[in-house]
């Protein structure tokens, strides 16, 4: 029998208590156990960033994170960015700057952009490009994504 681990953590501001198989990924827990399908499965191998979430303020690939490792931590997913006040400024910028086409990679892209904004703030264009290197998008060519992040944090050449 696969070991089960009882964990409790904060998900988008709410306390969650679940029992997860020891080998389950945080992504599977979020999508299949908790119904939080905003976080996407696109490769399951840490190569595309569609599953990016923030844990204790740090962005990571939830497909590579063990669900058990969420124990005691604060998890933020794309659903948690939108508050009663409306869309997060980063979400709003992605909408208004035309960064969203099929949109499948965008929850992960926005979470990574949010992490960059939180940790780096204003950055050079090269830093911005590097900061998004782990997020694959097949629709946009990334240009409108750069525009969106730049609109929020400010980007220097």
């Amino acid at each position, binding site marked *: 029998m696969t070991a089960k681990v009882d964990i409790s953590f904060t998900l988008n501001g709410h306390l969650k208590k679940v029992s997860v198989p020891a080998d389950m990924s945080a992504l599977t827990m979020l*999508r299949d156990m908790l119904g939080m*399908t905003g976080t996407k499965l696109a490769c399951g191998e840490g190569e*595309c960033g569609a599953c990016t979430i923030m844990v204790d303020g740090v962005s990571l690939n939830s497909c590579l994170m063990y669900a058990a490792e969420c124990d005691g931590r604060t998890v933020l997913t794309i659903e948690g960015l939108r508050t009663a006040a409306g869309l997060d400024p980063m979400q709003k910028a992605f909408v208004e700057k035309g960064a969203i086409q099929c*949109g499948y990679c965008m929850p992960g892209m926005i979470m990574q952009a949010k992490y960059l904004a939180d940790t780096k703030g204003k950055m050079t264009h090269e830093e911005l490009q*590097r900061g998004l290197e*782990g997020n694959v998008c097949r629709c946009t*060519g990334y240009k409108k994504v750069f525009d969106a992040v730049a609109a929020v944090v400010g980007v220097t050449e």
Partner: protein
Amino acid sequence: MEPIAKKSLIGQRVPKPDAPDKATGRTTYINDMVLPKMLYGKILHAGRPHALIKNIDVSAAKALPGVYAVLTAADVPEMFFGVGRDNRPLKGGKVRCVRDEVAAVAAESEELCDEALRLIKVDYEDLPAVFDPAEGAKEGAPLIHDNKPGNRSLAYQFKHGDVAAAEASSDVVIDSVFNVHYVTHCCMGTSCVIADFDCDGKLTIYSQTQYPYNFKMDLAPALGIHPGDIRVIQPPVGGAFGSKLDVYPFEPVCALLAQAARRPVKLTFSREEEFINAPTRQPVRIHMRTGAKKDGTLTFRKVDCLLNNGAYTSWGPTVPFVMMRTFSSHFRVPNVDIDCRAIYTNNPYAGSFRGYGNVQATYATSIHADMMAEKLGMELLTFSLKNAQKSGEVTPQGARLNECVFAECLQKAADVTDFTAKHARYAAERNKPGRIKRGIGMASSIHNAGGAKIHKSDGCGTMIKLDDYARATVITGASEIGQGIDAVICQVVAEELGIPMSDITIVNNDSAIAPWDVGVHASRTTFIAGNAAQRAARKAREQMLNAASKRANMPADALDLREGWVVHDSDGTPVLKIDKLLREMHFSREPELVMVSEYYEPPSEPENKEHVGDMSAAYSHAVHVAEVEVDTETGEIRIVKFTSVQDVGRVINEMGLEAQLEGGIVMGIGYALSEELKIVNGQVRNPSFRDYKVLTAPEVPPMELHFIESHSSTGPMGAKGIAELPTIVPAPAIANAVYNAIGIRFFDPPMTPEKVARAIWERDSKLAAAE
């Protein structure tokens, strides 16, 4: 009330209406869907290129608790489907490529499916296999399909004029063989389908398809049911790019599982499965011979294309339809002789992919233009302008180039990039010391921009209804796969009806509701669905203005609809609110609702048997200029600047237009530099984003976009279709730039660091040996 001035939404920057839901994770993509009582399906793929199936033992899989259905070819009728009607949902007798679907299971979870698949024992006897179409065509080659002698699949020929005479009269002739490679779509949402049968045997299929109506027609023969008994629902998808324009085996397999299990079944590919089993772009060996006079006039093109069909026939081997168009119409070519044939092999097979055929053909025509100009000692711009068609010209295949601004595009591209001066300077600097070499390259192409009449109809149906609150619902056949037709339709309808875009709802995801459309492909949707929406909206507008005319006691043509009001057209004086008008129309003695429909069929014609016909209602051109730096030691190519000039007819949604071009260009750069599905002995060697390299954010060069507005007389508001040219033109522009930098031609993309480094090393070794 203040007068309301006339304002236009056309040319504005409009966010996609579905963007907020997508940005917040609210959107439920098909990959996110769970239906009550739903089971999961998985397929056992052959994993070997050519083998007899001696025996399949599924007993252990069937016995596994939680497994509801296990199917092999023996359990289902022998039904054929696909473009070549040579494919079956489950393969019996023998397997012809690694993808081949040998068995399938439905179970309570994907993990259980995997476990069940591991329990299925298949005995194979491997057969000699063939992977190269030239080998496959030889006598005595292993036969892939018993009923396809010589492994011959589709073939196409087009001849115009007298190529032999043209060659005899040519001053310069160049001859090259291009080998364009396998790439794949890499949709971020992997292939996924949910099938559900009702008690009457009618199928509801939740599908990623880009062509919901013909999808029914193509899926039915795989299942042996009537197309009318299939309802297609299109939840939001994670990309398509042409990969979902055919039925692929996983779709009927999922339906067969649902039928057997009497439960809804969802089947999703893992990323690895996606790389191995989803369609590719068609690889082609293009042997091209081009002639010209001393003054630069092109005299002929003779082209021989050999296509690796793979084991089955989807849209891939039909790309000559478009390749021939490019060979005969990219520049004015008075004499052409084109021969294309596809040969079955034991490789995986290709489907359609953004730029369909033209990506392949333009790689050859644009590199040959550069080579020819050099050989003639002419500037590329001069040579290109000399051979660029003008408005009103008709190509050998009968394309009437109305509103043709090819020359303007070429001139603009050269002007904004300082092309001619840089091109000469970099060529002169090529042999100076220094490991980094700079180059600039130009390429161009032509593409259909007003649909493509390859089916019996190229039309789109649209219905519009307005409710008592002046909210409009547009029910359109046009599919939304991320490209942004939703925003365009909102703009066009809001423009005609004088209501805010936010008051418009689009319904386009259910074949039981929306009227017919041929599908989202061929750069057609803004043009065709835009026209359909505009025409429908005009009918609604006319009905509303006529009703207002009676109430205002003014002629209808003296009225206009602006910002929710009926106004005097002359000075904008408000007369009546539109919602009030609609209620008065509805709750009157002679009640009327505003609900209109339109079926727009473009004024194009299908090709005849000789492949002649004006098959698109508009054509457009794009010219790309790439400026590159080549590291002559590592072979790495860096794009310093990328410039695009494109005839877009007219800008409708400026932001959506830019986004399509930027995304298309980056896909085209990936095709040129890094993307390649490596298929060796029929096996996909790099089925992961780790080893299949799409462009990532740091590799994206600065892009400069210029739009030329030619105002199509047939397009909605003058617009033309735009979304494929950006993917078609980058690769030869980059190849020409690399030549400008280092003096080496690459006829076989992608230009990976290793390929470039090797070519430089080989040339330098030869030079050293000669000294």
